[in-house]
């Protein structure tokens, strides 16, 4: 059966995935919106930058993040001069790493969706006295629903399965940074296959029902809006 440590890891993973997805949506939405609307000549540079973390192997990315966030890294030392703690080996550090790693999975689908909405619905809303934020909340968000679902799903699932960055940056500390993926990896590494299968199955079943709910809801919404 699942050990206490496994359960802790499961909880921590859900926490991490939820936090990361939430932050990704909060950061990614305005970013994607801006990218979808701006006429800025050099926006492709920014788009490229956002996609870069994808290209590096996660452990390697984790390594560089470790360098940056560690006490001698420029972010870490900056944090310390501010009187804060270095971020490596903390939950916060993991969240930062996951956010950077999964950003393109959220920004790209959102940007596409925003682009596809076109200008007309926003123009109409403006003539109906909706201000910028109001338009965004009442028109863009609902019209971009399926983009948001895709973005959240990709972001969430990717963080669930996220591994390399977390392993490197988190240090596999049970209860603090040991997430499920690392726990499963650990079981496989220590040849505890039964445990590994069990935990994988738990993760899969959990995600399965979660995804099922989301897709099921989306399906019903789409039918309703036909």
């Amino acid at each position, binding site marked *: 059966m699942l050990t206490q440590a496994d359960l802790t890891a499961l909880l921590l993973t859900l926490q991490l995935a939820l936090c990361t997805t939430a932050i990704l949506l909060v950061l990614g939405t305005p970013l994607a919106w801006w990218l979808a609307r701006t006429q800025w000549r050099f926006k492709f540079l920014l788009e490229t930058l956002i996609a870069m973390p994808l290209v590096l192997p996660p*452990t390697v990315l984790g390594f560089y993040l470790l*360098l940056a966030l560690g006490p001698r890294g420029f972010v870490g030392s900056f944090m310390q001069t501010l009187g804060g703690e270095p971020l490596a080996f903390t939950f916060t550090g993991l969240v930062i790493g996951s956010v950077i790693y999964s950003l393109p999975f959220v920004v790209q689908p959102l940007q596409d969706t925003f682009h596809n909405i076109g200008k007309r619905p926003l123009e109409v809303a403006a003539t109906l006295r909706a201000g910028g934020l109001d338009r965004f909340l009442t028109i863009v968000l609902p019209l971009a629903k399926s983009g948001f679902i895709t973005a959240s799903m990709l972001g969430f699932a990717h963080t669930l399965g996220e591994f390399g960055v977390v392993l490197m940056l988190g240090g596999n500390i049970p209860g603090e940074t040991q997430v499920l993926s690392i726990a499963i990896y650990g079981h496989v*590494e220590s040849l505890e296959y039964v445990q590994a299968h069990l935990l994988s199955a738990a993760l899969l079943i959990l995600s399965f029902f979660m995804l099922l709910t989301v897709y099921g809801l989306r399906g019903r919404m789409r039918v309703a809006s036909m």
Partner: protein
Amino acid sequence: TAHADNLRIAVASNFAPMLTQLTAKFEQVSGHTLLLIPGATGQHYAQIVNGAPFDVFLSADSERPTQLETQGQAVSGSRFIYALGKLALWSADPKLVDDEGLILQSSAFQHLAIANPALAPFGLAAQQVLVSMSLWDPLQTRLVLGENITQTLQFVQTGNAELGFIAYSQFLLLDTSQKGSVWAVPTAMHKPIIQQGVILKDSDAARAFVAFLQNDYSRNLIQAAGYDLP
């Protein structure tokens, strides 16, 4: 004076199962608790250099503890050998591997799994064995490299490689039904696989743990689990 401490031990993946066995005893006799953090040695090293909150580091090699010590990241003079690795050539097939490793000269296999010599000391040792048998070059095309010794074992276990060099300690952990055939490689065929430990953060508890690892109780168990000791 002794109050209970919580020790974080970064341990090489291959030794983690062994250490798990020892943990209960240590916690019982010392009153301290252990938090095991298994992982690849290179990764542990990078993390330690960047401020990982580990107390003791049990490396899969001797280089990295040495480097940490010279860089001042470890308590100087605390380095010690906690085990010497033993190599085994193993196949899940009960008839494949003979007692002298002659199978390696045959064409009865497609894939020979070893750990990546660049990453894992067991891989380096396996390379040295093959070189000494003059098989390193001829076998190049049939070699598959695992990231670490466990992956190497899994290549063989899943049947994707017919045989592979693994740690003898791992072989002992296998279910009887899986034991297949094995050749315990004579240690003379490769440079010793020295696994060193070092204290990163000095404390009574850390010193107690290091002492515990080197006491007779532990040494017996370690040897029984398939390691040599100096």
